[in-house]
C-alpha cells in the first residue's frame, strides 16, 4: 500500500522478523510485556518521535485497550480499529451483553455481574447454577478462564483468574456466567466502515481448543447451513451497527447441537485466525482495516462476499502436546524451515531459524494455513504441510495437529470444544501406529541406518593404505521401538533397499540425502515425508513419522544380542519428587519442609507464558526439602520439592 512502517519491540525481540521487515524499529523496553508492549508511555513516546500517523495494534496486548485508543485520539493519531466507544462497549462483558440483547442478538442465559471477592463469587455462581465459567472481564480468548462445578472450584477459580487478570491485563475484574456444555465455537467476521456500512464475511469454526484456547480453525464451518449462517451474520452486523462499529471485528457465538446460537462476545480487533476468512473471501482484512481507518467507505456489498473453497489454520505452538495437550516449551530454534514449497500454504510467523522462544511471550511459533477447493483438499495439504514443517530445538505440537486433522470425527465435522478431552480422555499420546505403518517405519529406519553405514565407508581421495571395499549387501538388524524389539533384514538392491520385517518384504527407495532435514521416502509405493531428528553412534535414532516422533534404537543383530549382558541403569523414583513440567517462574510455594501433604494437595504454583499452573503432590507424605521459592525462575525438569 506504499505505507512506511515503524515496528516496536522489546529488548529480546531486537532481531525479530517484524523488526527486520519494518522500515524503522524502536525498542520500547525490556522483555516483560508490562514494561514493553503494554507500556503505553513508551509507545506514545515512539509515536511522537517517529511522527507516526496511524497505529495498527495487532492482536493481544493493547489491541482492545480503550485507554490506548483514547490517548492516540488525543494526540491526533489514527487507531486502526474501532473507536473508543465500541472498544469500551464490547470490551465490557456486561455492557456488551446488554447491547447485544437490545440489538436482538441471542445471548447466553444466566448472565451476571462483576465480582468483588470469593464469597461473592460463590453466591453468584449458585444463583446462576453450576457449571459456571469464571474469567477476566478485560481478557479476550480463553486466558484466565476457568470452569467451576461447585463452590470450592469457584473459590479456586476466583483466586487464579483474578491473579491472572491482574498480571496479564492490569485489571482484576472478573465475570461469571452460565457455562454451556459441549458447544461449538463459531464466530462471524464483520467489517464495518465509518459511514454506517457493515458486512459479514462468513464464519470461522474454532471448536478445536485446549484449555479454552483455539488450536485448529477453519472456514467455512461444516456445521452451518446457509440459513443459520445468514441468521448469525445478520445478527452480527446488527450488533456492529448498534455500537457504530468501524473496522474489522469478530462476533463470537456458541452454537449448540440443535444449531441454537448464543452471543459470547465481540472482539474489537483482528483475530489470530483471520487468514482463513481471507482465503475463502479473497479480502485482505488488514488492508480493509487501514482503508476504513482512513475514512474510506467499504468497497464491497454483502452480495460480493463469496465462499470460495475451504481454508484450515493450525496454530503451531512451542509446547509439549503430551502434557495436558500442550505445556509451554522454551529454547532456541536450532533449525526452522516453513513448508512453503507445498502448494496453497500460507505461514504467518514472527520467528526464524535461531530465534529464541522465551518465557515472556505466548509460545506460538506460527499460523499454518492451507487452502483448497474443498475441505478434503485443504486437509490433505495441511497433512503434507505439517509433515514438511521443520522445527528443531523446542518441543512443538505438530503431532497433535496432525492427529486432529486426520481423525475420523474431525474429518466428518463432528467436533465440539470438548473434542480433545473426548477423543483423548487419557491425554494425547501421539500417533498410534497400525501394523503396516509400524512396518513402514521400521523399514525406513533400518534403510536409513544402512545408508548411513554405507556412507561411512566411502572416503574421498586416494589413501596410502587402500580402504577395504566391503562386498556386503545384506544386514541383519534389530530395531527397538517402544517396548518391542523387531528383527529387520535389509538387503541392498541397486539404489533401493529390500527390507524384510515381520515376514513381509518391503521395498524402500529414497535419495538418501543424510544431511537434509526432510527426507522423502517411498515404501512399497507409498510416498512419505519423514524427518530424522537425531542419530548417534549408539544406534539411537529419532524419526518424525506421520507427525509423531518415534524413538528407535537400531543395532546390528550381534550388538543387540550382546546388549542383553549390559547392566540396566536404575531409573529415578518420580513419585516422591516434584519436578517443574515446564520452564517458568514460581509464583507461590504452599509448603515448608516438614509439612505433611496429602495426595493431590497443591504444593506450588508456576507461571509460564501468562498461565498459572498448580503443582500437586503425587502421593501423601512429609516434605523433605523445598528447592524453590516464590520469584525463582525454574527450567523444565528442575527439582522443586522432595517428599520423604
Amino acid at each position, binding site marked *: 500500500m506504499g505505507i512506511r512502517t515503524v515496528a516496536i519491540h522489546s529488548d529480546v525481540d531486537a532481531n525479530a522478523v517484524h523488526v527486520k521487515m519494518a522500515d524503522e524499529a524502536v525498542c520500547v523496553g525490556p522483555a516483560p510485556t508490562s514494561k514493553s508492549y503494554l507500556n503505553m508511555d513508551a509507545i506514545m513516546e515512539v509515536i511522537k518521535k517517529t511522527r507516526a500517523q496511524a497505529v495498527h495494534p495487532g492482536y493481544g496486548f493493547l489491541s482492545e485497550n480503550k485507554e490506548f485508543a483514547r490517548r492516540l485520539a488525543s494526540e491526533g493519531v489514527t487507531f486502526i480499529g474501532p473507536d473508543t466507544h465500541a472498544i469500551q462497549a464490547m470490551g465490557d462483558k456486561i455492557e456488551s451483553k446488554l447491547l447485544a440483547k437490545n440489538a436482538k442478538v441471542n445471548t447466553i442465559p444466566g448472565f451476571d455481574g462483576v465480582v468483588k471477592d470469593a464469597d461473592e463469587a460463590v453466591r453468584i455462581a449458585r444463583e446462576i447454577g453450576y457449571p459456571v465459567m469464571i474469567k477476566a472481564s478485560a481478557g479476550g480468548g480463553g486466558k484466565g478462564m476457568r470452569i467451576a462445578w461447585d463452590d470450592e472450584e469457584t473459590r479456586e477459580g476466583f483466586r487464579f483468574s483474578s491473579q491472572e487478570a491482574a498480571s496479564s491485563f492490569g485489571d482484576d475484574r472478573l465475570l461469571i456466567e452460565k457455562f454451556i456444555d459441549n458447544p461449538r465455537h463459531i464466530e462471524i467476521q464483520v467489517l464495518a466502515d465509518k459511514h454506517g456500512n457493515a458486512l459479514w464475511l462468513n464464519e470461522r469454526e474454532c471448536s478445536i481448543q485446549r484449555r479454552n484456547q483455539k488450536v485448529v480453525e477453519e472456514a467455512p464451518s461444516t456445521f452451518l447451513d446457509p440459513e443459520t449462517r445468514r441468521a448469525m451474520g445478520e445478527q452480527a452486523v446488527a450488533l456492529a451497527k448498534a455500537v457504530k462499529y468501524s473496522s474489522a471485528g469478530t462476533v463470537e457465538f456458541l452454537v449448540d447441537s440443535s444449531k441454537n446460537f448464543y452471543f459470547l462476545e465481540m472482539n474489537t480487533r483482528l483475530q489470530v485466525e483471520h487468514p482463513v476468512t481471507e482465503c475463502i473471501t479473497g479480502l485482505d482484512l488488514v488492508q480493509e482495516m487501514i482503508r476504513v481507518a482512513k475514512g474510506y467507505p467499504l468497497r464491497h456489498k454483502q452480495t460480493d462476499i463469496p465462499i470460495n473453497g475451504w481454508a484450515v489454520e493450525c496454530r503451531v505452538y512451542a509446547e509439549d502436546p503430551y502434557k495436558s495437550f500442550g505445556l509451554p516449551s522454551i529454547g532456541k530454534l536450532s533449525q526452522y524451515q516453513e513448508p512453503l514449497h507445498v502448494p496453497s500454504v500460507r505461514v504467518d510467523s514472527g520467528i526464524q531459524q535461531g530465534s529464541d522462544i522465551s518465557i515472556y511471550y505466548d509460545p506460538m511459533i506460527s499460523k499454518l494455513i492451507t487452502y483448497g477447493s474443498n475441505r478434503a483438499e485443504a486437509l490433505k495439504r495441511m497433512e503434507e504441510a505439517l509433515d514438511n514443517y521443520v522445527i528443531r530445538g523446542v518441543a512443538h505440537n505438530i503431532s497433535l495437529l496432525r492427529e486432529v486433522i486426520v481423525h475420523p470425527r474431525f474429518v466428518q465435522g463432528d467436533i465440539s470444544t470438548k473434542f480433545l478431552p473426548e477423543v483423548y480422555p487419557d491425554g494425547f499420546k501421539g500417533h498410534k501406529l497400525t501394523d503396516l505403518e509400524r512396518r513402514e517405519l521400521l523399514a525406513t529406519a533400518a534403510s536409513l541406518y544402512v545408508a548411513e553405514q554405507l556412507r561411512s565407508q566411502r572416503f574421498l581421495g586416494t589413501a*596410502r*593404505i587402500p*580402504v577395504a571395499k566391503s562386498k556386503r549387501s545384506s544386514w541383519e538388524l534389530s530395531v527397538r521401538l517402544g517396548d518391542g524389539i523387531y528383527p529387520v533384514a535389509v538387503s541392498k538392491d541397486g539404489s533401493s533397499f529390500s527390507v524384510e520385517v515381520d515376514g513381509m518384504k518391503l521395498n524402500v527407495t529414497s535419495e538418501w540425502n543424510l544431511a537434509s532435514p526432510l527426507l522423502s521416502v517411498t515404501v512399497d509405493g507409498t510416498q512419505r515425508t519423514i524427518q530424522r531428528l537425531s542419530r*548417534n*553412534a*549408539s544406534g539411537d535414532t529419532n524419526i518424525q513419522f506421520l507427525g509423531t516422533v518415534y524413538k528407535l534404537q537400531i543395532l546390528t543383530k550381534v550388538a543387540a544380542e550382546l546388549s542383553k549382558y549390559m547392566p540396566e541403569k536404575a531409573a529415578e523414583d518420580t513419585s516422591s519428587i516434584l519436578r517443574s513440567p515446564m520452564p517458568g517462574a514460581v509464583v507461590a510455594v504452599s509448603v515448608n519442609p516438614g509439612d505433611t501433604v496429602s495426595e493431590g494437595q497443591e504444593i506450588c504454583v508456576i507461571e509460564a507464558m501468562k498461565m498459572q499452573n498448580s503443582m500437586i503432590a503425587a502421593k501423601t507424605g512429609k516434605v523433605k526439602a523445598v528447592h524453590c521459592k516464590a520469584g525463582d525462575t525454574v527450567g523444565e525438569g528442575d527439582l522443586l520439592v522432595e517428599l520423604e
Partner: protein
Amino acid sequence: KEQKDFVRKVSAGCRISFFLSFAAVKYRDWLSCGRGKLTARERILLLLDPDSFDEYDMFVEHRCSDFGMDSNKNKYPGDSVVTGRGRINGRLAYVFSQDFTVFGGSLSGAHAQKICKVMDQAAMVGAPVIGLNDSGGARIQEGVESLAGYADIFLRNVLCSGVVPQISLIMGPCAGGAVYSPALTDFTFMVKDTSYLFITGPDVVKSVTNEDVTQEQLGGAKTHTAVSGVAHRAFENDIDALLNLREFFNYLPLSNRDPAPVCECHDPSDRLVPELDTVVPVESTKAYDMLDIIHSIADEREFFEIMPSYARNIVVGFARMNGRTVGIVGNQPKVASGCLDINSSVKGARFVRFCDAFNIPLITFVDVPGFLPGTAQEYGGIIRHGAKLLFAFAEATVPKITIITRKAYGGAYDVMSSKHLRGDANYAWPTAEVAVMGAKGAVQIIFRGKEANAEAEYVDKFANPFPAAMRGFVDDIIQPSTTRVRICHDLDVLASKTQSSPWKKHANIPL
C-alpha cells in the same frame, strides 16, 4: 597344496576350539553376572568390521614356571590378551584387547610381547593402535619380567606418539603401572560404572593417607572425565563405547603421513547459516552457547566433543567441514565467561598438538575475556600452563582458521590462534571486540576515573573489529551467516599448505 589345506584346517579348527573350549560359556556367565562386561573377543567383534579380524600370536603362552604356573591348567593359548589387526569402516587398525578371564588380564612377559608386536607393526605400516584395556595389573608371579613388559609398552607408546594415533578404551580396572600406557596415548575413553584408573586402589589410599574413598570416587569415569581430566570421554556401557569408538575412528588419519580423511558429505559447503547473524547477544556481558555456533557450521551438525565435562570454559573436538575432518577449539562464554584458566589451557593445548601432529586443520572460535585472575590460578602456575596453549598454537603448522565472535581481550587474544601466531585466515564478526581489556578497566587505568565520557570513547575506539582489521590482524570482517562458506573455501585452498619450523631435536614446551 595339500599341506596348505591342512595348515588352514588346523588353524581354523584351533580357532573354533579355542573360542569354545576356552570356557567361554562359563566366563560369559561370570562376566555378565552384574558386571555388565563383554569378553575380549566380543569387544573386538563389535569394534571391527565383520570378518575383518586377523589374529596374531594365538599360540603364545606365558613362560612362568614359578608358583605352579607351569602346570597345564595354568596355561592358556594366547595368554591374557587378544591381538591382531582389522578394519574399521574399511580402514586398517591394530588392536589389542586384554582378557580379564585369564589371570585377571594381568600383564605377563608374553602378554607384553604380543602388544609390542602389534605396536611395532602399526608404527611401521602407519596405522592406528587401539587398546581395549581390562587388566588387574602386573602378573605378580612373573615379577620383574612383568615390569619389563610394561616398560617395553611405554617405550613404544612414546615412540609411536605423533606417528600413529593411539587410542585407549578402559573397559575394566586399570591400576598401578598399567595406567601409564593409556596416559601416554592420544585419547583415553572410559566405560561408566565398570572401569577404573588409579595408581593405587582405595585400600592403599586408606593405609597411606587415611582417606576413605570408593573405587568409583577415586578413579571412576566421572572422576576422570570431570575432575582430573585424565580421560577424554566416558560411555554408557561396553557396546555404546565400542560403537562410538568406530565413529570416532572415522575422524582420524591413519598416521602422520596421511592427510585428514575426507568423507562423503551431503551437507552443502555453501550453506548459509542465518541464525549466526543473531547468535551473539546485544549486551556484551550476556552469555551464549558456543556449541550452538559449532553445531550450526559443522557438517550435519555433528561434533565429536573431547572432554565435554572437564574445563568446560573451552570446547574442543572434531567435526567435518565439507567432509574433511577438522579440529575445533572454542571459548565457551556460557561457562566462566569463557576465560582461560589452568585446566582449559592444558585441555586446549593437548588437543591442538594432536591435530597438528596428525594434519588436522584447526578452526578456532574466539570469545575470551582474558586469563582468569586470582591467587589460586597464580599459585597453580597459570603462567606456565597458559604458555602451553600459546606454545601449541604457535608451533602448529596445519591450516589455522580463526573466527573472533566477540571478545578477544589482552594476552588471551594473542594466544587464541591469532594472526601473529601464523594464523592462515583470521576473521572477525561485526560483534568482535579486539582490545587490551574491557572498556571499564581500560578507562580506569588511562584516566583514573576522571574522564566522564572516556568509557564511551574507548568503546567506540576499541570495542569493534576495525582497529584490528585496519592493521591486517584480521583478514576480513565477515557476515556471520557466511562463516561456513568461508571456512570451507579456505580449507580447500589450504589443503596444500606447507610450512616448516627451524630444525630442532624437539621443542621444549613448558610442561
